[in-house]
């Protein structure tokens, strides 16, 4: 049975990343934007794992790529925790999570 090629994996991850980016641009709910960011991170992880599989070192997958993914997941978890805490604090202060209303950084 034919197996999927590296190109296909990369293509899929590229599309996933684009979807995430589209979400960040289109959506206004800051929590959803946050989810889309996670999606983009996941797409990057997929690329890393695909390359780690493709790049064999002495007959085994290159685990350095997977290490990276491991760390990405860890950092992302921490990021989500802090980010959500910030969102909660923001909501407490502003009573909104809509980015249209959050433009105090305007120059």
């Amino acid at each position, binding site marked *: 049975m034919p197996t999927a090629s590296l190109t296909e994996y990369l293509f899929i991850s590229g599309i996933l990343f684009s979807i995430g980016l589209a979400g960040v641009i289109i959506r206004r709910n800051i929590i959803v934007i946050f989810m889309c960011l996670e999606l983009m991170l996941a797409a990057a992880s997929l690329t890393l794992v695909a390359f780690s599989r493709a790049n064999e070192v002495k007959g085994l997958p290159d685990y350095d790529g997977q290490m990276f993914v491991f760390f990405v997941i860890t950092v992302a978890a921490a990021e989500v925790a802090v980010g959500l805490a910030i969102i909660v604090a923001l909501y407490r202060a502003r009573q909104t999570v809509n980015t*249209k209303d959050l433009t105090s950084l305007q120059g």
Partner: protein
Amino acid sequence: MHPSLLLILPLVSAVVIHFFLQQKRASIAALVGTLVTAATLGLSLMLLGSENSTTLFNWIQVGDFKIDIGLKLDQLSTGMMIVVSGIGLLVHVFSLGYMKDDEAKARYFGNLSLFMFSMTGIVLASNFIMMFIFWELVGLSSYLLIGHWYQKDSAADAAKKAFLSNRVGDFGFLIGILMIWGISGSVVFDEMSLTAGTPFLAAAVLLVFCGAIGKSAQLPLHVWLPDAMEGPTPVSALIHAATMVAAGVYMMARFFYSVGIDVIPECSAMTIAWIGGITSLFAALMATQQDDIKKILAYSTLSQLGYMVMAVGLVDPNAGMFHLYTHAWFKALLFLGSGAVIYACHHEQNIWKMGGLLKKMPVTGWTFIIGTLCLTAVPGTSGFFSKEGILHAAHDKSHFLFGIAVVVAALTTFYMFRLIFIAFLGKAKNKHAEHAKEVPLIMGVPLILLAVMALFSPFLGSLIPAVDGFHPHIGIEMNLVTGCSIGAFILGLAGAIVLYKEKESDPLAGNAVMKVFRNKFYFDEFYAKLIKVFQDLVAAVVHFLDEFVINGLVVGGLTRLAQGTGNIFRAKMQTGSLQNYAFLFGAGIILVIYLTVFL
């Protein structure tokens, strides 16, 4: 006795007076200054006739290049030292009386010592840089002494004017020194001799002469000297009549003999002679219509300096130096005499408010008349012999200059006797003059001594500052030159008698030409305009350009450009909307990928 004491003593005196003998010990200061000057006179007399050059110390040394502070002793410098220290001593003594009650007496004597120091430096300088150093220092002491009564606006302005006029001259002087250094490879007088026809020498000579124009107040930089009369009168006698203003002539003589009298290019020499001649004529004309006794003498000094410069320009510096020597004594006498008059008349300087002083102040009056006779070159007086030399030189070279010199001689007689008739003869025209009393002995003695010197200086041949065994021609022989000289005297005297004997006011006051003379040919007004346009206006325009073009338009423009660009980005790009940022971010990524991958 080391000759360097001549420099050290007055310097020490100046420092001691300025730092340790202020107000409360002013009398000690005056005494210190006078004694030091007496000591320098003694030293100068002992040094007479010695000929050598010594190096005191090495001032600047870089690699092979060096500038030394050294002393050059020869007849020119030792003779000049006698003039400087001799008149200096008498002026010091006179000042003891004249400045007795001045509140800044210590400062006055300190500055006089400073002047003695600097003037000695000029006279004994062994190289041009050293001479320039002391040249500037006499400028400073002159500045300080003219501005002695600095609270008077006129004195402060006159001091400034003197300094600045000298500076303008020094501009050329310094360039001249640099060129001479380039041409001859040395600034030391003993190593400077040149061969005729050296390129740039004519320019260099004229540039060096610029220094003399400034210091000896030649046209067109003469304007400071009459204003310098704002200083105390003894200062005018010492600095602005006898010694410092003559330094220009001394310097030119030293310079000419160092490079060699034969190599001086004709064109520059004649330029110098003409400047001297024109100065003497213009100054004599201006003197005829002055009312201030000191101003008359100041213009007369200008005129006589013109004579000396003319002699230098006629390549006969010895004649100029001889006239410098005789002139120093009788002009100092005249100035101190006028000082005595001013002192007696309670600081009244207008001659039309004096009159009849000869009877009330016989010593002053008669010595003043002796000075006048010398100045007007009555046959047998010192002025006659020295002027004769110059007239001969002029007669040999240029009849036109000779003519000018004779006219000036007539004018000199005219304005000096005008002064005598109005101030010393006739009736007292003012109650100050009415109650004038003879000055005290301390001021009278210097007058008498100076009168003696004025009469007998030509006969003391060893004192005359000159070069190459110069012997003045003493004697009266009837020839064209002598005839013209005597004729000029008679003409001038007659004019003065006709116009001014027993007059209460100036009969020529209304005349339009005389008005031009009275207003000094409008030089001051012209310079004021010139300064207004070429300095103040240009300064204002340049300042405007600097402020608004360079600072405002260029620098400020760039600032505003940066600020404006920043503002555009701030207002248009920094929307605060997350979507916007994400969009731009994405677009940026695409651009970066495009640039890196596809190009």
